[in-house]
């Protein structure tokens, strides 16, 4: 009997000691923060992660959808109150759809900052296979994606450059990664639009210097040049805009696609300068919705499969109807009923309703021709080619005949028909001092309080230094 007792005690004691060691359990499906810069694979992984963030529907998809229905391209008939509020220019700072855009943007910026700030200090001697060229390229990619995101933020959360010559408030410029320390360095006041624009400009100039001309489907120097051309157009720096657009056109890396087959899962088309590639497997995922999280695809497509919330507006239908035979309508639209049961048309630019994995149009060569044409026209120059030739080239692809002359309206109309549903329309109207809605009232007029987004509530509550946009949010 005694023996049993003693054995029991010993067994019990052994258990005590061995069990405590068992409590150190490590995750099997995540990488701890301190090991990310340990290998070339994980460093590349951290850069790929920024692209993955950029590909989230809240950063690429929803902002475009919202821009289209805030302006006159889409007639929003959906039932989500957060989107209805934006549509009716009654947006509040607590709006859940806007929240995600701001938060995802700064998550991406944080991930990019991590590379931009920390990677240069990583010694190539410590990481097998890592070269200085790799480091420069990785930092260049991070800067391009950071610039792209800052431009998206400043376009949506601040009045455009035209409002006050860019001296109005933009967004806070965060250039450091958060590593658990003092949060006050991340509670910054908003920089002005000009300051944000010049931060973006610097990032893009650095990216142009360090990115290769061909970097597969990742960001390359042409993409940074193209984005810079877009920035200059928004800032009305016509010479620079025409120049950079022309640099992209003449680089030989890209050319106008013969037809419109580049929308559906064709990222290697010569049309694309930088495309957001969505695949069924790249998440981030909601476990109950297989496929990618590009839910905006649902909005742009009718039932079944889609929600049927974002059909063509009558104004856009009329614009195409004014000149029949436009392949951009005939080949890129479908007739169906919308969520409200009305017969209308839907775009087919985002056709993958099975997996929501349609690619996001970011920068394509057509936009460069449109920028060059507009900038040249406004500047009275013909860098690369004349505005008339550029516009006629796009019209011919659409199956339309040549124009004899072009004016600003003709360029703007071509721009609208070409880029509709790609998220450009709202900024095009605002920068041209046009009301967002045909016959629209003061609420949708340029400079109105709610043609831009409020700074989100989470930022207001957690950042004592931030300033809200004017208007009752």
């Amino acid at each position, binding site marked *: *009997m*005694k023996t*049993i*007792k003693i054995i*029991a005690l010993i067994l*019990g004691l052994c*258990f*005590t000691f061995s*069990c*405590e060691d*068992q*409590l*150190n*359990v490590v*995750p*099997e*499906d*995540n*990488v*701890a*923060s301190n090991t990310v810069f340990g290998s070339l694979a*994980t460093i590349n992984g*951290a850069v*790929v*992660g920024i692209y*993955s963030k950029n590909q989230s529907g809240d950063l690429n998809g929803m902002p475009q959808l919202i821009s289209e229905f805030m302006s006159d391209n889409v007639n929003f*008939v959906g039932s989500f109150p957060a989107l209805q509020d934006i549509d009716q220019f009654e947006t509040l700072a607590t709006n859940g759809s806007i929240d995600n855009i701001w938060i995802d943007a*700064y*998550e991406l*910026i*944080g*991930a990019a*900052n991590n590379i931009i700030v920390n990677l240069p200090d990583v010694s190539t001697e410590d990481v097998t296979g890592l070269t200085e060229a790799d480091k420069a390229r990785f930092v260049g990619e991070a800067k391009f994606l950071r610039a792209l995101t800052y431009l998206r933020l400043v376009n949506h959360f601040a009045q455009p450059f035209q409002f006050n010559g860019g001296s109005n408030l933009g967004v806070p410029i*965060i250039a450091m990664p*958060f*590593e*658990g320390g003092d*949060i006050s360095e991340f*509670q910054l006041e908003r920089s002005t639009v000009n300051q944000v624009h010049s931060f973006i400009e610097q990032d893009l100039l650095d990216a142009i210097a360090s990115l290769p001309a061909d970097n597969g489907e990742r960001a390359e120097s042409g993409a940074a040049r193209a984005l810079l051309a877009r920035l200059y157009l928004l800032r009305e720096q016509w010479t620079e805009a025409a120049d950079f657009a022309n640099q992209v056109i003449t680089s030989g890396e890209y050319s106008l696609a013969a037809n419109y087959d580049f929308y559906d899962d064709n990222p290697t088309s010569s049309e694309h300068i930088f495309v957001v*590639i969505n*695949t*069924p*497997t*790249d998440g981030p*995922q909601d*476990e109950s919705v*297989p*496929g990618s999280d590009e839910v905006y695809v649902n909005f742009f497509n009718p*039932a*079944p*499969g889609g*929600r*049927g919330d974002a059909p063509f507006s009558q104004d856009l239908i009329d614009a195409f109807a004014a000149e029949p035979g436009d392949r951009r309508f005939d080949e890129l639209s479908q007739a169906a009923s919308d969520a*409200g*049961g009305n017969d209308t048309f839907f775009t087919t630019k985002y056709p993958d309703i*099975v997996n929501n994995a349609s690619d996001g149009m970011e920068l394509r060569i057509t936009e460069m021709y449109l920028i060059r044409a507009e900038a040249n026209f406004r500047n009275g120059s013909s860098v690369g080619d004349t505005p008339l030739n550029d516009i006629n080239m796009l019209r011919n692809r659409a199956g339309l005949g040549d124009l004899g002359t072009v004016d600003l309206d003709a360029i703007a109309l071509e721009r609208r028909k070409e880029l509709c549903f790609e998220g450009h329309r709202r900024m095009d109207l605002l920068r041209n001092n046009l009301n967002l809605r045909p016959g629209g009232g003061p609420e949708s007029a340029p400079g109105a309080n709610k043609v831009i987004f409020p700074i*989100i509530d989470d*930022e207001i*509550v*957690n950042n004592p230094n931030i300033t809200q946009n004017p208007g009752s949010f």
Partner: protein
Amino acid sequence: MKVQKLFGTLFMLLLTTVAMSQEKTITGTVIDQTGVPLPGVNIVVEGTSNGTQTDFDGNYAITGNVGQVLLFTYLGQKSERRTIGASNVIDLQMEEDAQALQEVVVIGYGNQEERKIIQNVGIVKQEAIENLQVVSADQLLQGQSAGTQIVNASGVLGSAAVIRVRGVNSINSGSQPLIVIDGVPITDTAGNTLNRGGNTGINPLSFVNPNDIESLTVLKDAGATSIYGSRGANGVILITTKRGRKGENTTVTLDVSTQFSQSTDVPDILTADEFRQFKSDIATIQNGGVFVSPEDLGLGAIGSGGTDWLGGVQRTGISQNYNLGARGGSEKTSFFFGLDFQDTEGFIIGNDQQRAGARINIDTQVNDWLKAGMNLGITNNRLNRVGIENNINAPFTTAFLQSPVVPAFDDEGNFVQSGSFIPNIFARVALNTDEVKTFRVIGNAFTEITPLPGLTWRSEFGIDKLNLEEFVRQAEFNTPGGLAQQIWVNEDRWLTNQTINYSNTFNNDHTLTVLAGLNYEETLRTRSNVSSTGFLTDDLRNLGSGATPQVLNGDRFPSRLFGLFSRVSYDYKGKYLVEGSIRRDGSSRFGANNRFGYFWSAAAGWVLSEESFIQDLNFFDYLSFRASIGTVGNDRLGTFPSLGLFNAGGFGDYNGESGVVPARRPANPDLKWEESETLDIGLKSTFLNGRVNFNMAYFKKTTSDLLLNQILPPGTGFNSISRNVGEMENRGWEFELSTVNVRTENFEWRTNFNLTTIDNEVLALNEDAATDPQGRRIIDGPIQRAIEGESLNNFFLIRYVGINPQTGDAEWLDVNGNITNNPGSGDRVVTGSPLPDFSGGMTNTFTYKGFDLSVLMNYSYGNEVVIDGLRFADGNDAIGGIVNVRRQNLNFWRQPGDNAFLPSPNSSTFDLFNQRSSQQQLDASYLRIKNVTLGYNLPQSALDRLGGLFTGVRFYLTGTNLLTIKADEMDGIDPEVTDDIDPLFQGESFFTAPQAKLYSFGARLTF
């Protein structure tokens, strides 16, 4: 049986007379303490195999020699010894054995005599539950025990009830109690199945057959729960399954029943023609009186048909239950064996469940120092799921909202598309598959070694193995290209409990019990979630046939727990009792800087009924006071809450390249459990010859170190950091009263009543929390707001007043209480609470001869619910006006003086009417007749006529949810709702499918 016994006795008598004629025959009569003859008393001559039993009249005869000792034994009576002397007659009055009759109650890691318990435990014994016909074990607890609130979220099969022991004790971590089945704490991960709205994840309590349950013990105060340490804060429910008794004849029970299931109550919505008329009337008024026909609105002509969606998603579900139980034992070994099969049809189309289960419990006394045994329960479950709540695949929600003019079928009877994002739900249910198969084994094996009297070493090895497979196949009609999805989850826990228990009584007065033990658990959850799209035809069913297969999840979540614990109880003459316990828990979930936590409790009790001055009153059969204080923890924080991580897989990948992105939460190595400190004071009493039992308790539970998410400035790129900073208090009273109201020879009426009040107060939120205009810290949600200094759960809405009979405008109150026609979010105030002022249950049991009737009611008073879906089902404009509405919407304002439900169609408030406000907040007080069971047991004479084949035959009829008394405004809406187990969303629902109204009949045969 009795006849056999009689023969046996006579035969024995003859035998002994013949064989031992030289000895003398002793005869006598055995009676009990009240003088009634005791039949069946065992009498043996000690040291021989010579024995007999008393007959019906308590008489016996046995032979023996002078000087030999007769041993009289009878269950529940004190054994007696009589030495054979000169007399040939030995009569005996036996005495009740108080010790043996003492009910023993299961507590954490042990048992205790009920009268010596100074922990606060709610005990649900077999007699309270044996006649309840329920689908899962959580329903056994409803209304039965004070302080335990069960909210059955809906009548959907497989949905988990929200179980709260003494209110909500957490904000961001889990609030469900720990469930322990025969010593095995079971896993209850909610995310193992796909989210289909509401609590339709798999109910952890559906894995034990209710018919196998002997008793349930709810551990409530720290005195009872602190032995479970870091997992005790939400209370602990101990489930004990049936065991055999040694030396008992084997009884076999076969229970067969059939059940019919319907919905309790559904909203009254418009028919197709009413809908057309309604829309036409409104459009006409809005058109300045110029007639607008339904055809003009695209709704088709009056009389052109439509669809009764709500009727079409309901049915009368028919279910079959078969249950077989056998229990018995020999001198050394006892067993229980259970087998059950349930084939259940829900009252919602597409919702079915088949469950088969088996259980075997065996104990054996190997020798005088070793006992060994095993409990093993196996369940196999197949469930066809449907969505609920805010989910377009939810039959009830979609049937409420789908326009009645939308056809479901074309002329040839084929499904047609609805034309909007609200799908043709008939097609979804008929063509899609959503099936969950689970296989679960819960059991343990134990040995008990008694090296010395009073010292026991119990060694348990347990397992909880869950195997789950969910298969989804969406048809081409519903999802272009089709979709298949399959999820496999393996959640395995193995554990060991090693306890040493020493119990002894010194000098007859001092009883000491010491328990020391360790508990080690390892849990590993493994998940694969794969889907595939792009199917050529619906006939190709499985993942491999789709064009685009993808792995959505493939991951493993390990966690480990190691605890050392001890409990010491001491009592003096069963009169003064003290008890203390301590536990040290280490958990892999806690941060590296806070890996181990200590939890303790101290309790004292005084059994006044053992004092002579109380006994002199001749009133109390039992009276005791007790108090306890102690701490417990809550470890429901997730698997790796303290680490800073980069996410990989789908989160970080891009264009086929692997990537990583920072998770939204930075590291916090200080993270630890939430800790609750509970004070509990109670009284227990029995009086009027045991006819009245009254217990009451007061408790105050302060939870500190509440895990709150400190929101980080978005500029950091992180969402929030979890810190242990909050503090919350729950306090309340619990009352339990059970009475025997009438007791005559043939008729008995018993009542059990319980009532609980709970007040919740948030004492502290994090310093950087959002604040309201009064400067109080808050956690804000769209419907509720938690406010520091007030309850965690407050509905925080714009106050809706009604329709002004003169103007036809809808009116609300602004924040200052003035009427407004255009309120904003700044006008939100506290409008109600989802937490009841008091709640509880009452059971009345009547028995008359062979009949018994029991009526179980439960109630809740003073709480509200918000039915968010009414924003769509009321008013004219939701989702562009395409959705159906409730019938009261026909009552819109037409002229001054109208007491209307809806504003004037010309009012500026017409489309604002259904915005979120207290209009959707409804009074959820209710009294529900939860269960009525009428049974009839065949009398002995009838059993005899059946040839003695059965020892018992019982027929019964049961009705569940027969009647609910509730406010008028709750017409068509179930008051017992909540669509989320998250503590911050209690009492909110979009559209809960109603509870099931069940009728069943059956028979129970005992052999």
